[in-house]
């Protein structure tokens, strides 16, 4: 069993989501990606490896540099893609409801 190759496992981590967000804006090298985080470089490399293994990121050789870019096709495969979005709002609204029910009784 290799959990690392599970896409949903991969995107469950906040740093990896932040990396995906970053790389979504433009392709970049591991060095540039790591510079955006206070996290140690090897930790970022590990995250990049996981994201690459589950094909959310693709590597592209450009001269001497390796650029990471978003694999849009794989992102689509994460579908049913509306479900996470709906779930996010559902979670938020459930929290809202709980918080306000408590607020009411104050």
């Amino acid at each position, binding site marked *: 069993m290799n959990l690392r190759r599970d896409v949903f496992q991969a995107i469950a981590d906040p740093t990896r989501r932040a990396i995906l967000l970053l790389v979504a804006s433009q392709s970049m090298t591991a060095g540039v990606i790591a510079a955006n985080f206070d996290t140690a470089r090897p930790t970022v490399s590990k995250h990049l490896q996981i994201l690459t293994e589950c094909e959310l990121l693709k590597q592209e050789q450009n001269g001497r540099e390796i650029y990471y870019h978003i694999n849009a096709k794989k992102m689509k495969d994460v579908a049913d893609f509306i479900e996470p979005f709906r779930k996010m709002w*559902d979670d938020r609204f459930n929290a809202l409801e709980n918080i306000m029910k408590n607020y009411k009784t104050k």
Partner: protein
Amino acid sequence: MELKTKINAENGAHDLFITREFDLPLELLFKAFTEPELVEQWMGTKVLKLEGKKHGSWQFETTDAKGNVVFKANGTIHEFSPNQKITRTFEMENAPFGVQLELLEFEKLTDDTSKINMHIVYESAALRDQMLQLPFAQGINMAHNRLQQIVSKLK
């Protein structure tokens, strides 16, 4: 657990609708959208600024456990009608998704129940789908686990 939130996003459209009914009086539902400390709790983000008025603006920021900023967004408020409607823009900073228009309508169902209708308009259908596809959409609420803990303590 029953999922009460509904999303309607037609193929190829550049907008979507989110609806949800609450076991809360209309006034409390509206309050949850306008009091910064309440927004912080259920959105799981830090509210840097939230001006509940026409021509007002807002700013949210989320940091991870180490203090890195993982989400930052802002917008302006175009309409603010208490217990009825909020029209505002939303833009995620350092992200390629452009600005979106959010029309929030609040509706009284009974004395103890209410409903929100959110209409979100994106710059294009492609941008809407990109926004939906990106897995971080699921995780914008980075402090989600923390929030769950807060809420379960309240119960």
